[in-house]
């Protein structure tokens, strides 16, 4: 079974703090993704990575950065947390496209509150 784990289930941070969210997958997947999930907006892609040290912006990258130093680990960084970054953050991974599936495997999510 694919397992995607996220470092925290719940996190409370203060405005202006630097926040690190970590994600680890155990299936040797090439692709990893960070989403945020807000009511009525579905899942929106922040950043993704298709290889170690490679990253690309998603639809809402402003205020975020990422790091992928090892294949199994993908970190999301909030350089200076703001209250509008209060959200559920979901990490996902997927294998290089096999010709039949783009299935992404998700972690349990981190609910971040910025006060």
């Amino acid at each position: 079974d694919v397992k995607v784990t996220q470092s925290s289930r719940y996190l409370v941070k203060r405005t202006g703090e630097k926040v690190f969210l970590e994600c680890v997958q155990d299936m040797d997947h090439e692709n990893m993704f960070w989403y945020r999930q807000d009511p009525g907006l579905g899942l929106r892609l922040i950043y993704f990575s298709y290889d170690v040290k490679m990253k690309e912006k998603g639809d809402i990258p402003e205020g975020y950065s990422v790091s992928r130093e090892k294949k199994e680990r993908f970190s999301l960084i909030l350089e200076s947390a703001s209250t509008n970054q209060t959200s559920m953050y979901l990490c996902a991974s997927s294998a290089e496209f096999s010709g039949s599936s783009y299935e992404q495997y998700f972690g349990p999510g981190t609910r971040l509150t910025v006060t």
Partner: protein
Amino acid sequence: GESVGLHLPTLSVQEGDNSIINCAYSNSASDYFIWYKQESGKGPQFIIDIRSNMDKRQGQRVTVLLNKTVKHLSLQIAATQPGDSAVYFCAVNPRGGTSYGKLTFGQGTILTVHP
């Protein structure tokens, strides 16, 4: 870019009824479609997927129908059970360029099953 929308944000059914959740997409070149189920406090989990060369695909109690003419996707759940209560998301691979397995998600439909 791709946009994905759902026709109804909420759906309420009686146990034993069949449920139909609908989804519309905008890019006629999209070639891969997937449905996820998200239970409270968990990350999204794969239900079923379909490629654009198919109109219908069946799983256990679930069927996905794809109508490429009107760019519409539906998920049918047979004999709905209380355990099916969750948020359901459709997602589409936004074809074009180098997608690296990216998915564009709809806003989600909340399915509530009453005993």
